[in-house]
Protein backbone atom coordinates (compact mmCIF):
# COMPACT_ATOMS: atom_id res chain seq x y z
CA UNK A 1 0.00 0.00 0.00
CA UNK A 2 1.60 3.28 -1.09
CA UNK A 3 -0.84 5.54 0.74
CA UNK A 4 0.82 7.78 3.30
CA UNK A 5 -0.48 7.28 6.84
CA UNK A 6 -1.78 10.39 8.59
CA UNK A 7 0.46 12.34 10.94
CA UNK A 8 0.95 10.58 14.25
CA UNK A 9 0.32 7.15 12.76
CA UNK A 10 3.10 4.76 11.78
CA UNK A 11 2.41 1.70 9.66
CA UNK A 12 4.85 -1.21 9.58
CA UNK A 13 4.47 -4.07 7.12
CA UNK A 14 4.93 -7.59 8.41
CA UNK A 15 6.31 -10.49 6.43
CA UNK A 16 2.94 -12.21 6.33
CA UNK A 17 1.40 -9.25 4.54
CA UNK A 18 -0.40 -7.82 7.54
CA UNK A 19 0.45 -4.53 9.16
CA UNK A 20 1.01 -3.03 12.59
CA UNK A 21 -0.52 0.41 13.00
CA UNK A 22 1.19 2.43 15.72
CA UNK A 23 -0.97 5.22 17.10
CA UNK A 24 -0.21 8.20 19.31
CA UNK A 25 -2.32 10.59 21.34
CA UNK A 26 -1.85 13.71 23.40
CA UNK A 27 -4.28 14.44 26.22
CA UNK A 28 -3.80 18.01 27.34
CA UNK A 29 -5.90 19.69 29.98
CA UNK A 30 -5.55 23.35 30.83
CA UNK A 31 -5.35 24.09 34.53
CA UNK A 32 -5.16 27.85 34.15
CA UNK A 33 -7.06 29.55 31.37
CA UNK A 34 -7.35 32.99 32.95
CA UNK A 35 -5.04 35.97 32.90
CA UNK A 36 -1.57 34.80 33.91
CA UNK A 37 -0.03 38.25 33.71
CA UNK A 38 0.16 40.15 36.93
CA UNK A 39 -0.47 43.81 36.46
CA UNK A 40 0.61 46.02 39.28
CA UNK A 41 -0.06 49.70 39.45
Amino acid sequence: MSEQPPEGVTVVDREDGTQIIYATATLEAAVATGNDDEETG
Partner: protein
Amino acid sequence: MAAIVQAQANQILTATLAIGGSNTVGATSPLKLKLTSTAPSSTTAGTELSATGYTAGGTAITFATASGGSTSGPTGSAISWTNSGGSSWGSIVGLEVWDTAGTPVRWWFGTWSGQPIVIAAGNTFSVSVSAVTVTLS
Protein backbone atom coordinates in the same frame (compact mmCIF):
# COMPACT_ATOMS: atom_id res chain seq x y z
CA MET B 1 -8.38 21.66 25.02
CA ALA B 2 -10.24 19.54 27.50
CA ALA B 3 -8.88 16.11 28.17
CA ILE B 4 -9.97 15.38 31.67
CA VAL B 5 -13.47 14.32 32.52
CA GLN B 6 -15.42 17.22 34.01
CA ALA B 7 -16.46 15.39 37.18
CA GLN B 8 -12.83 14.43 37.83
CA ALA B 9 -11.65 18.00 37.19
CA ASN B 10 -14.05 18.99 39.94
CA GLN B 11 -12.44 16.40 42.19
CA ILE B 12 -9.00 17.87 41.55
CA LEU B 13 -10.28 21.35 42.36
CA THR B 14 -11.92 20.03 45.49
CA ALA B 15 -8.75 18.31 46.62
CA THR B 16 -6.23 21.02 45.81
CA LEU B 17 -8.39 23.79 47.24
CA ALA B 18 -9.53 21.70 50.20
CA ILE B 19 -13.13 22.52 49.34
CA GLY B 20 -15.33 21.30 52.13
CA GLY B 21 -12.22 20.17 53.95
CA SER B 22 -11.72 17.41 51.41
CA ASN B 23 -8.26 16.59 50.16
CA THR B 24 -8.64 13.13 48.78
CA VAL B 25 -8.80 12.37 45.11
CA GLY B 26 -7.44 9.66 42.90
CA ALA B 27 -8.05 6.85 40.53
CA THR B 28 -8.28 3.23 41.62
CA SER B 29 -5.58 1.19 39.92
CA PRO B 30 -5.12 -0.61 37.67
CA LEU B 31 -6.17 1.85 35.01
CA LYS B 32 -7.63 0.64 31.74
CA LEU B 33 -7.12 2.07 28.26
CA LYS B 34 -10.25 1.83 26.14
CA LEU B 35 -10.63 2.44 22.42
CA THR B 36 -13.71 4.26 21.18
CA SER B 37 -15.39 4.50 17.81
CA THR B 38 -16.78 7.95 18.58
CA ALA B 39 -15.14 11.04 20.03
CA PRO B 40 -15.42 11.24 23.83
CA SER B 41 -16.08 14.54 25.59
CA SER B 42 -15.62 15.86 29.11
CA THR B 43 -19.17 14.87 29.96
CA THR B 44 -19.92 11.95 27.66
CA ALA B 45 -17.98 8.74 27.16
CA GLY B 46 -17.28 7.59 23.65
CA THR B 47 -18.76 4.40 22.28
CA GLU B 48 -16.33 1.65 23.15
CA LEU B 49 -15.02 -0.27 20.19
CA SER B 50 -16.79 -3.57 19.68
CA ALA B 51 -14.65 -5.76 17.49
CA THR B 52 -13.17 -9.23 17.24
CA GLY B 53 -9.74 -9.18 18.87
CA TYR B 54 -10.36 -6.06 20.93
CA THR B 55 -10.64 -6.56 24.67
CA ALA B 56 -13.94 -5.11 25.83
CA GLY B 57 -13.38 -3.06 28.95
CA GLY B 58 -9.92 -2.09 27.82
CA THR B 59 -6.42 -3.18 28.72
CA ALA B 60 -4.36 -2.24 31.75
CA ILE B 61 -2.13 0.78 31.32
CA THR B 62 0.38 2.44 33.60
CA PHE B 63 1.94 5.88 33.37
CA ALA B 64 5.45 7.12 34.04
CA THR B 65 6.36 9.43 36.91
CA ALA B 66 5.03 12.88 36.12
CA SER B 67 7.54 15.60 35.39
CA GLY B 68 7.04 19.16 34.22
CA GLY B 69 3.30 18.75 34.33
CA SER B 70 3.36 15.82 31.97
CA THR B 71 3.50 12.06 31.92
CA SER B 72 3.17 9.32 29.34
CA GLY B 73 2.16 5.72 29.00
CA PRO B 74 2.04 2.88 28.61
CA THR B 75 5.18 2.01 30.51
CA GLY B 76 7.10 -1.24 30.20
CA SER B 77 5.59 -2.63 27.02
CA ALA B 78 3.27 -1.69 24.19
CA ILE B 79 -0.45 -2.37 24.24
CA SER B 80 -1.70 -4.10 21.13
CA TRP B 81 -4.90 -5.54 19.77
CA THR B 82 -5.04 -7.63 16.58
CA ASN B 83 -8.07 -7.77 14.35
CA SER B 84 -8.69 -11.50 14.38
CA GLY B 85 -12.01 -11.21 12.60
CA GLY B 86 -12.70 -11.48 8.93
CA SER B 87 -13.53 -7.87 8.27
CA SER B 88 -12.27 -4.38 9.02
CA TRP B 89 -12.75 -2.91 12.47
CA GLY B 90 -14.01 0.34 11.03
CA SER B 91 -12.96 3.51 12.72
CA ILE B 92 -10.95 3.93 15.90
CA VAL B 93 -11.46 7.53 16.95
CA GLY B 94 -10.82 8.04 20.62
CA LEU B 95 -9.25 6.75 23.79
CA GLU B 96 -10.31 6.85 27.39
CA VAL B 97 -8.52 6.08 30.64
CA TRP B 98 -10.79 4.43 33.19
CA ASP B 99 -10.03 3.24 36.68
CA THR B 100 -11.15 -0.02 38.23
CA ALA B 101 -13.19 1.21 41.16
CA GLY B 102 -16.24 -0.85 42.09
CA THR B 103 -18.07 1.44 39.73
CA PRO B 104 -15.32 2.29 37.26
CA VAL B 105 -14.64 6.00 36.80
CA ARG B 106 -13.62 7.59 33.53
CA TRP B 107 -10.74 10.03 34.12
CA TRP B 108 -9.12 11.11 30.89
CA PHE B 109 -10.14 11.11 27.26
CA GLY B 110 -8.90 12.20 23.85
CA THR B 111 -8.66 11.31 20.21
CA TRP B 112 -5.89 9.53 18.37
CA SER B 113 -3.63 11.55 16.11
CA GLY B 114 -4.66 10.98 12.53
CA GLN B 115 -8.01 9.49 13.50
CA PRO B 116 -10.18 7.85 12.36
CA ILE B 117 -7.90 4.82 12.11
CA VAL B 118 -9.16 1.76 10.28
CA ILE B 119 -7.76 -1.66 11.13
CA ALA B 120 -8.11 -4.21 8.38
CA ALA B 121 -8.50 -7.92 9.13
CA GLY B 122 -5.23 -9.38 10.37
CA ASN B 123 -3.73 -6.02 11.23
CA THR B 124 -2.67 -4.88 14.68
CA PHE B 125 -3.44 -1.61 16.44
CA SER B 126 -0.55 -0.84 18.74
CA VAL B 127 0.19 1.80 21.35
CA SER B 128 3.93 1.95 21.87
CA VAL B 129 5.55 2.76 25.19
CA SER B 130 4.99 6.47 25.95
CA ALA B 131 2.76 6.93 22.89
CA VAL B 132 0.03 8.50 25.03
CA THR B 133 1.07 11.81 26.56
CA VAL B 134 -0.99 13.38 29.32
CA THR B 135 -0.35 17.00 30.25
CA LEU B 136 -1.73 19.50 32.71
CA SER B 137 -0.63 22.98 31.74
